[in-house]
């Protein structure tokens, strides 16, 4: 039987038969259906995924006319950052980086970012960020955001003023842990309002909340409250809410946003809250399982994302970096896998952007 080159979730090249690929796609979809309660993909969808995965070309792409918007997170840190941010370690300026993305890398949008890429450390240098935003807006043409992670972990001990829920729970101080998470969420929302409204006042097209809910359900709620405040203060700002993972971790367990418990929500449920808070575009995430095949991961990711697109009233720009959106968890993600996942997300899941 013919064997096709494909990948594992950790990026390693393997060969599989068409039948084995089809079996893994179905198993991945079944996992999404079981975990998230999403709809099954159709027979046509599965056939299309098989066709994409067994394509013998190294690079694949969408059909002409099906192009979508490619948005960015992490801003210039993809050039300047260290490998913790998958950065190149090239210390280029923020203006130069933005213009290179616009004029040489075909970016549809881009963003300004602080070296720590988090809301909290932007506060003491807000004037610096504002003047840099003003300067770059004078030169750039594409929509130019400010981007940062809510990163609520920075509000907990030892980095912040609130007790660390992980430590408190270990001591069976459950109520204290929940209070700390609630207080941190309120603090985060205040900081988001402070930082984001000033960047919009400096001419930013909008704000990209990246890796939302990385510290769990209270992080998600705090971010949504911050988004709500930004939307109220700046009705025309472009707001992008991108997630950290496929399921919101229940660190608090019962914290709610507009009557909905945030813990355990999957992308098609998360998007409804992002919409209510005032987001213009939602960035759903599906994590990659490194022990499974590309086929399993892609089938699962497409099932989740197709449901999000179907549920959402706003555009969905799926997260497609290393280890999300079906893409292998590998720093130099193989181009054959990246382009296959991209094509599948556009042509099968129906995303509005990547």
């Amino acid at each position: 039987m013919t064997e096709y080159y494909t990948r594992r979730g950790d990026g390693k090249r393997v060969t599989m038969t068409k039948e084995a690929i089809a079996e893994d796609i179905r198993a991945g979809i079944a996992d999404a259906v079981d975990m998230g309660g999403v709809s099954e993909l159709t027979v046509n969808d599965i056939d299309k995924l098989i066709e994409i995965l067994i394509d013998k070309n190294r690079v694949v792409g969408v059909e002409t006319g099906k192009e979508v918007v490619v948005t960015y997170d992490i801003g210039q840190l993809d050039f300047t950052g260290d490998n913790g941010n998958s950065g190149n370690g090239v210390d280029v300026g923020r203006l130069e980086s933005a213009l290179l993305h616009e004029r040489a890398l075909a970016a549809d949008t881009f963003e300004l970012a602080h070296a720590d890429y988090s809301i909290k450390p932007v506060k003491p240098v807000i004037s610096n960020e504002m003047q840099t935003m003003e300067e770059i807006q004078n030169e750039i043409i594409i929509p130019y955001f400010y981007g940062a992670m809510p990163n609520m972990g920075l509000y907990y001990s030892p980095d912040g003023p609130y007790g660390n829920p992980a430590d408190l729970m270990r001591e069976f101080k459950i109520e204290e842990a929940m209070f700390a998470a609630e207080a941190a969420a309120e603090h985060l929302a205040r900081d988001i309002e402070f930082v984001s409204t000033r960047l919009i006042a400096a001419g930013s097209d909008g704000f990209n909340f990246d890796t939302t809910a990385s510290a769990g359900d209270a992080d998600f709620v705090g971010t949504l409250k911050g988004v709500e405040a930004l939307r109220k203060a700046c009705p025309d700002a472009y707001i992008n809410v991108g997630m950290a993972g496929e399921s919101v971790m229940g660190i608090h367990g019962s914290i709610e946003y507009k009557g909905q418990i945030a813990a355990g929500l999957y992308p098609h449920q998360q998007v409804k809250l992002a919409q209510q808070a005032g987001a213009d575009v939602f960035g759903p995430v599906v994590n990659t399982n490194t022990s499974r095949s590309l086929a399993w991961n892609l089938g699962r990711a497409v099932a989740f994302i197709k449901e999000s697109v179907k549920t959402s009233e706003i555009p969905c720009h799926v997260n497609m970096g290393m280890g999300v959106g079906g893409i292998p968890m590998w720093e130099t993600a193989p181009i054959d896998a990246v382009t296959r996942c991209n094509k599948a997300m556009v042509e099968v899941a129906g995303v509005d952007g990547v």
Partner: protein
Amino acid sequence: MAIAHFVASGMGGIRSAGDLVARVEYDKNLKVDKAKEYVAKKLGISTLDIADEHIMRDLREELKIGVITGVPGAPRGIAAKMNIEKLLGIKINSCEKFREQIR
């Protein structure tokens, strides 16, 4: 990643009309097909043509909305965005701030 995603499905930013479609998605909360229809109508070309570099290169220069190459005298930055505002019938925040500063 940037190159792989552009090659696979990206509109290409100011190589074509990717920046315009992105603005309409965010400004009007339109999904990609509707956003492309909106932009195509404003440009007076088809949704297929708005992602065609061969068509958009000259059209962008003619409309003074920015091109990827360094053309002396061609608007870029705020000037190009002011022309995009008129073309798409939208307000762009940085242009609003610029106007506030010269009042």
